[in-house]
Structure formats: C-alpha cells, structure tokens
C-alpha cells in the first residue's frame, strides 16, 4: 500500500507539486499523466526517496519516506527518468552491483540476476559496457535493475520512452504480468499505454491532481464517448448525409473530415445513437465503408483538463 498525504514540493518561488493526496493498493497499475513540467517526475522522485518533500508525507508499505527511508527504499524498484546508468560498467557487473546494494547473497543473488537478465533478454549483451548499448537495451538494463530485488512496489518513470513498438509491447507485457501482486506506478506521455497497462490513471497539471479515474472512466468524460463514426464510399453523399444526421434527435453535433469522407456524430449526454444512425444509413441508401462506435478519446480528455 502506498499512502500519499498532502505531499508538496516547492523550489523557491516554483511549486512543482502542490498538495497531492492519493492511495494505491496492491494489484493496481497507476498511470501518472500530465504535460511536461506538471510534477510527475518530482512526485516519483519523492516517493523513491531521492528528494524530500517540502510538506506532507508519504508511506510505502507502511514505511514513511522521511523517517524510515531505508526500509521504504528497500520496498521499491525505481527506474529514474531517462534510465541513467553507469556507462563504463558492463551489464553483468552493473547488475551485480545493484544486487549487492540490495543485499542479495548466495543462491538468491544468482537466481535474481538470472531472472532479471533472462526476463529482459539481456543475455546477449552481459559482457558489453553499457555505453555501447542501444537506447532500447539501456532502458531494459534500467528495468532489470528495478526488478532486481523483486520489490512489492515498482515506480517507473517513462519506462517505454525511446523504445521501438516491439520493445514497448514487450515492456507492457512485462508490466501486465507483474501487476497481479505488486503496486506499479508508471508515468507516461503515451495515452495508448494507459489503455494497455493501467487500471487507474491520475492526471496532474501544475502540480495538482485534476483527474483520478480508470482509463475507461476517463474516456467516458470525452465528448466522443459513444459517438458514432461513419466513412462513406461516395464523397458526393457527404453534404446530404450530414444534413440528415444533424436532423436526428439525440445528435448534438456532427464533425466532418472531407479528406477521408468521414462523419462523426456526437450524441447528446447519455444517448445511444448507433441504432438510429445505422437505420438512417439504410434508409438514405448511404454506402458505408465503415461504421463504428467510439469509446471516447483519452487524448481529447487529456487536452481538455490539462489545458
């Protein structure tokens, strides 16, 4: 369990984190979202014990981050932003260094090293120095380091930044696998990542929480939630189709994209407009390439609440 109470961090005149309070329970994957400079990294650094809060407290598995720092740090696997590492070390010696700092010994040490190297597919580069590795490999070394002790809490600052789509998928699979009994907090700019791995999303802007909900709950706040998007075979029908759809009750607005002959009908609050629209298409003889129900657009919600 992570408990955060009225956590604040001020630098001179700047308030980076302003009175954050939330709790995270085991099994939850919490996504931290927010524009650059919103205070995501500062919050994670405070939780990981790198910087001290100006006000407020937080506890990790019952250990206060200020009065019981070492025990709190022991419960956390942390990937700092940009995954800084010791470039001159080999992957093997770096991970051994982390294992030693984590007080792993004997067969436990061997097993955890083997697990971390195997799980992040680092076997082929263990004897290379870290500075010679590609960005993707370095990020994986950073993740291996965070997993070393099998900690109950993982705090990962932009874990998929700089990875290619395959590697992103791989890391997300890893997070999903581990999420059952752990608390995982990730920060990200990628909204599809929130959908893919998070059970809960907190959006922060200017150091404050502006939304705290499940990804589905957030998407439901979108004006595109339950909107219907249809693409026409014949662009000439666009104007007529638009007029007909706008005339329907329950339709709040229609957006048109001429480039791909697409219409998006936005429903009035709570209305289901898909049946009415498919009926209308049949009646008017509109040839449809595609007709689908939107589940809400996270990026649009994000922009609306953080702007």
């Amino acid at each position, binding site marked *: 369990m992570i408990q955060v109470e009225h956590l604040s961090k001020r630098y001179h005149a700047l308030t980076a984190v302003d009175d954050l309070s939330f709790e995270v329970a085991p099994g939850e994957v919490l996504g931290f979202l927010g524009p650059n400079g919103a205070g995501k990294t500062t919050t994670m650094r405070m939780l990981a014990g790198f910087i001290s809060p100006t006000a407020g407290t937080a506890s990790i598995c019952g250990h206060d981050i200020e009065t019981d720092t*070492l025990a709190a740090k022991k419960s956390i696997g*942390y990937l700092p932003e940009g995954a800084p590492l010791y470039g001159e070390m080999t992957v093997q010696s770096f991970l051994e260094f982390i294992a030693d700092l984590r007080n792993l010994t004997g067969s436990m040490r061997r097993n955890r090293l083997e697990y971390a190297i195997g799980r992040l597919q680092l076997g082929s580069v263990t004897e290379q120095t870290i500075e010679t590795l590609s960005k993707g490999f370095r990020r994986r070394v950073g993740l291996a380091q965070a997993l070393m002790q099998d900690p109950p809490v993982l705090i990962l600052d932009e874990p998929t930044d700089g990875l290619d789509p395959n590697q992103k998928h791989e890391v997300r699979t890893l997070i999903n696998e581990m999420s059952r009994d752990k608390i995982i907090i990730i920060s990200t700019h990628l909204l599809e990542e929130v959908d893919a791995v998070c059970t809960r999303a907190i959006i922060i802007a200017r150091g404050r929480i502006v939304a705290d909900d499940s990804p589905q709950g957030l998407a439901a706040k979108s004006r595109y939630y339950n909107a219907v998007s249809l693409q026409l075979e014949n662009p000439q029908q666009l104007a007529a189709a638009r007029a007909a759809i706008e005339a329907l009750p329950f339709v709040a607005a229609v957006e048109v994209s001429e480039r791909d002959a697409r219409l998006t009908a936005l429903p009035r609050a709570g209305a289901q407009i898909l049946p009415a629209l498919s009926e209308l298409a049949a009646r008017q003889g509109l040839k449809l390439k595609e007709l689908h129900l939107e589940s809400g657009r996270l990026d649009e919600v994000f922009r609306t609440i953080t702007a």
Partner: protein
Amino acid sequence: MRNVGVIMRRELGSYFATPLAYVFILIFLVLANAFTFYLGGFFERGQADLAPFFNFHPWLYLFLIPALAMRLWAEERKTGSIELLLTQPVTLWEAVLGKFIAAWIFAALALALTFPIWITVNYLGKPDNGAILAGYVGSLLLAGGFLAIGSCMSALTRNQVIAFILGVVVCFVFLLAGFPLVLDVFRSWAPQALIDAIASLSFLTHFESIAKGVIDIRDLLYFAMLIAFFLLATTIALDVRKAE
C-alpha cells in the same frame, strides 16, 4: 557499512575501466620523479633521505588530486546516475564515504608505485626508513585531505572543470593558510585569535612536521578532522543540490 564497501569497489573499478587510472598514475610517477631528481637535487645533496621526494608532494597534489576528485560527484550529477545510486537502499553518508575511500585507495596505489625510489635510496646509502615511512604516511594523509576538499567541490557543481578549478583554489588556500599570502587577507580586519586559528589550518605545516619523521597525534587528528569536516560538507552539499 557493507554498502560502503560495495560502493567503494564499484568506484575503484570505474577508475580502471577508462584510461583515467593509467594516465593519472603515469603522470604522477613521471612528475614525482622529475621533481625529485631535477628540482630537488636528489643526487647533488649527497644525503640518503627522501626529503627532496616528499617536499614536492604538496605541489604535485595541488593539481593532480583535484583532477582525480573532480569526477566523484559532478559526473554522477551530470549523467543522473546519482538518482539511481541514492534510490538504492543506501544512505547518503555511505555513498560519500564509499566514493571517497575509493579515490583515496587509488591515490595510495599511485603513491605505493613510487617504491623504486625507496629501493634506490636504500641501495645508495643507509637512510632512516622510519622517517621515510612517516613521509609516506604524511603524503597519504595530505592526499586524503585534498581528496576530501575535492569531493566537496565536486558535489557543488555538475561541471567537472569548475569542480577542478574550485578544488585547486580551495586546496591552495589550505596549503598556504600559514603563509602571508593567505594571512594578509585577514590581518587588516580579523582578531589575532582568528588569524592564529587560520594559520594552524595550514596543510603545509602539518605535512612538513610529519614528513620530518615526527608523527604527532595532533597532526593526525588535524587531518582526520579536516577529512571528516569536508566529507560532512559533501553530504550537506549533495543533500541540498543532488536533484538540480
């Protein structure tokens, strides 16, 4: 304390992972010997001792030790690896101590590699080996003092060049604290007690009394306290500035 050892071993290993260690040791040995034989007149003096060797150590260290110490924290802050290190279950104090000891062991290694000159002087005459041992102890303590100052300067900045220059300046002030160059700055306004206190901080006075072969507990205490003070200052500086 286990963590101090782990951090120390990693740090020491990183010296040898780059050419830094070899370049440093080579330059140290070449300069130490050049000073001894050319400036110190090792042969011309006709005495079987290592005074011309040890006399130049403070000046050699003045530039070489800040060069060794400048990367201790500035580099960690620049690359961000300090965040990785300090979010492991270690205390700041363990990290500061571990890295300092690594640098000190490295300096001790460079110093130990000057052993041919000890063999030479024993081959040529009958020196007082007790005094030579004291000279080595004094030199090692001096290196430790400079390293502690260098560690603190390195913690103040992300820039290694600035850390180096700050290190040289502060070491220089401490080296000459007992001399008019430094004391005159204070003489016009400070009370005599303060001037005496500053004069007693001089590296050179304490080093020379040890190098003469007299290991006085007060000189040992001086170096121990100086190192402890600057390591504490390093810890405070890091605590304030580590995230910047």
